[in-house]
């Protein structure tokens, strides 16, 4: 058994030293009636070669972004992951370490988290960030729980242009606490409208907006933020970190809490996980933050060092009074994000933003000119837009996928009723050839009738 070093002889010797004659004697506390008494019905162990062969075969049954041009987004993006990120993040020192509860032998992990927090603060223009949540949706869940704890209010207002899946997750995670949720419609895809303000009031714990929004539009949110603040309502921004080289930061717009999906920062799409939730907050909310936080301190000889701090917020100390139940987080993904951001630097971040945005403008312009297709919304789009296709978007997706393109996400996937809607996303890895092929196929699809 290649992962179990003890030989039968080792076991006999150890059992003898323990003072028992058989392994069974060690199980005396397990009542006979509760023993399984038969082998597990799981196939016999395989050689490593077989495991690799079979799982590779399984993986090849999937249609992946590695073989297709991927125009799918909605929180999960096909960015390039530099080789150095993979090389660094496959080091055992990062991969096989536990949570840094013994800081003297976990300075590597702790310093990386400190750097991660610092970078997230920079991106979002916020004074405090934690070491990660599970994903974008759970980060939003925690933001809402935090707003409730801070304001002692029970109502949340969010817009239709906040990711519907994040909203579903945040509702599930907060429903037992008696939270209620009002969704403000965004008829033109924009969050700059009066209906949203009308839903606000002195009983609202938090207003949640997305920036750029779910449909890819960059809304001007300053007035809305001020309006919410005038009610003592906290404002939560769901933010795409990849836009932060170009857009005014949520911090500058007055955000109290900023959350986001960090997958795009050096992590693979990997069928939805593992990802990492980004979480940042204003100074006055720091002590209500969920999750792990690393701070600087000194050792007994006066050297700079790093430790987990404010642990009295956390479940292992505070138990039922903790700010959250989170324990294990997404450490290795945050580590990858740190490596990625350090290599990107401010120019790389901006370059990816511009590259994605220019491709988006190009494809929008081209598709708008294809008969039967239209762009659903006006407004400045960052790297995503809602395309109206002729007929059911699921059929269009199927047609395109048979031609090497994952064309976008049908809106029906999010429980929305618009059958013609397809959410299309671009990253720096989409080429001119792929975009032109997209347009050519769309043209053929339209003229060839609705397949």
């Amino acid at each position, binding site marked *: 058994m290649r992962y179990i070093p003890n030989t039968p002889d080792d076991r006999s010797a150890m059992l003898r030293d323990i003072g028992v004659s058989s392994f069974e004697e060690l199980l005396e506390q397990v009542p006979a009636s509760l023993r399984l008494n038969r082998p597990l019905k799981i196939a016999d162990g395989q050689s490593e070669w077989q495991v690799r062969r079979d799982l590779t075969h399984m993986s090849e049954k999937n249609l992946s972004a590695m073989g297709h041009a991927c125009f799918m987004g909605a929180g999960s993006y096909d960015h390039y992951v530099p080789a150095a990120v*993979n090389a660094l993040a496959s080091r055992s*020192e990062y991969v*096989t370490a536990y949570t840094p509860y013994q800081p003297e032998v976990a300075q590597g992990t702790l310093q990386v988290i400190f750097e991660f927090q610092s970078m997230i603060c920079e991106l979002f223009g916020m004074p405090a960030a934690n070491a990660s949540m599970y994903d974008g949706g759970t980060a939003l869940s925690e933001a809402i729980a935090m707003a409730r704890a801070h304001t002692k209010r029970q109502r949340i207002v969010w817009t239709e242009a906040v990711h519907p899946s994040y909203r579903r997750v945040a509702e599930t995670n907060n429903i037992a606490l008696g939270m209620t949720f009002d969704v403000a419609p965004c008829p033109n895809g924009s969050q700059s409208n009066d209906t949203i303000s009308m839903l606000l009031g002195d009983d609202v714990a938090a207003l949640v907006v997305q920036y750029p929004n779910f449909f890819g539009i960059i809304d001007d949110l300053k007035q809305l933020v001020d309006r919410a603040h005038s009610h003592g309502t906290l404002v939560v921004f769901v933010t795409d970190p990849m836009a932060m080289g170009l857009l005014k930061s949520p911090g500058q717009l007055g955000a109290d809490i900023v959350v986001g999906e960090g997958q795009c920062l050096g992590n693979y799409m990997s069928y939805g996980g593992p990802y990492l939730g980004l979480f940042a907050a204003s100074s006055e909310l720091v002590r209500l933050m969920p999750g792990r936080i690393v701070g600087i301190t000194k050792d007994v000889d006066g050297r700079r060092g790093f430790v987990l701090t404010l642990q009295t917020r956390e479940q292992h100390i505070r138990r039922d009074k903790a700010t959250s139940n989170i324990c294990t987080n997404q450490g290795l993904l945050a580590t990858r994000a740190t490596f990625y951001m350090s290599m990107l630097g401010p120019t790389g971040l901006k370059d990816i933003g511009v590259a994605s945005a220019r491709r988006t403008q190009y494809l929008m312009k081209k598709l708008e000119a294809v008969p039967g297709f239209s762009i659903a919304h006006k407004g400045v789009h960052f790297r995503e837009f809602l395309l109206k296709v002729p007929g059911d978007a699921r059929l269009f997706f199927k047609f395109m996928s048979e031609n090497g393109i994952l064309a976008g996400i049908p809106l029906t996937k999010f429980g929305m009723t618009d059958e013609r809607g397809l959410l299309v996303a671009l990253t720096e890895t989409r080429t001119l050839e792929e975009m032109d092929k997209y347009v050519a196929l769309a043209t053929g699809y339209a003229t060839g009738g609705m397949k």
Partner: protein
Amino acid sequence: MKRDVTSLQSETKLIFEHSHEGRTGFQAPPTPDSLPAFELPAELQRKNAPRLPEVAESTAVRHYVNLSTRNHHIDRDFYPLGSCTMKYNPKINDEVAALPGFAGLSPWQPASTVQGALELLGELSDALLEVTGMDNITLQPAAGAQGEFTALLMFRAYHMKKGNVRKRIVIPDSAHGTNPASIVLAGYGVTQLPSDSNGLMDIEALKRTLDEDVAGLMITNPNTIGLFESNIAKIIDLVHDAGGLVYMDGANLNALLGISRPGDMGFDACHINLHKTFSTPHGGGGPGSGPVAIKEKLARHLPVPVLKKNGDLFVWDWNRPDSIGSVHTYYGNFGMHVRALAYIRSLGGNGLHAISENAIINANYLRKKLSPTYQIYIDKPCMHEAVFSGNNQKAKGVRTTDIAKRLLDYGIHPPTVYFPLIVPECLMIEPTESETKETLDEFIEVMQQIDREATETPDLLKHAPYTTPVRRLDEAGAARNLNIRYFDNANA
């Protein structure tokens, strides 16, 4: 002179302190000139770029390689953290998770285009159901704590459907901190019961608290003292008779594979830490994965979507009106699911049983060999971990913290300390099945040596460690003078 002779301790620069204007470690793919410009209205434009470090790739690599050497990790040496199951993480698992046909999948792809991935999730689900003896499962929870919470929401939905949501969940005082924290988030109050003198659930205390307000019981089995709750069938019956449900915290499942199954014990739900029992790496704090296996009576409340098979095709079922909703944006930590299945396939049914057998033998070996020196909390055969009290050493003026810090000097990661809370000066030791007898013998010698040091040179222990990259750190000071980011002013 900036560089000093290499010594045991050192400070490292932060990546920001390597930053040099104009450097970068990244080149974006070119954007053809023919593409339109991106025109952003001035009021939306960012004026000050985020101050990410400006370093070449080589600088970043050197920096993070150097930082990595300041970590202890399983591939370097023994890591007997109780309740954390720090076993060897096979390398093939990481390799298959990185296959392009897995790593390159968008979660939004239609089921028909990801049949291989769904087949994998189906096979993993079946294996976990066989191991736990349960009827149905969700792989969605991203960690154990989220698994607990997910199950509690299902308990809540179950009781609501029956017309009385109930008010409290009972836990023993030896429970992990996540249990009470999850209970509160699920909208329940916490009733904590003291353990009996054998370190087990106190049945009389349980009887006294059970009434129609109790929604359920959460219990870890084997418990955090490393003991199997031998009255578990009785305990579960009592809770069921009172109309409650019973949850098994699966943190210690590494003791039970092929030996005893939570479903057969009568549990209604349990979570499985793939990052403990099924060897997915801890990653310095995550990612984990905490699937929840349940009995049929809870199936209608499973989070959506639920994996099912229509003929030969795997599909996601969203049409489940009694579902609690979703706890994760997608389907959970898929990359961890791939790793766990690779592990299960590598071991097979017999191999999984051998895991638990060897984990239990290793733990009992340590129990037996260390108990003359360290006070065993309950003097009985243990399951996968042995729990000691540092009382003998405390009598010599040395605390468990000091023992832990001294272990670092010997290159060994300390056991879990001061947990469970009911054990004074607690040392909770979980060797796992991955360790050789030779490693265990070395550990025993080191622990005996530390005990001698406690007698002869207690001050040596009180100031340990001496050989680590930094020495004892001022944790109270870190909380008092909070410094959690590099730049002290926001740059919006």
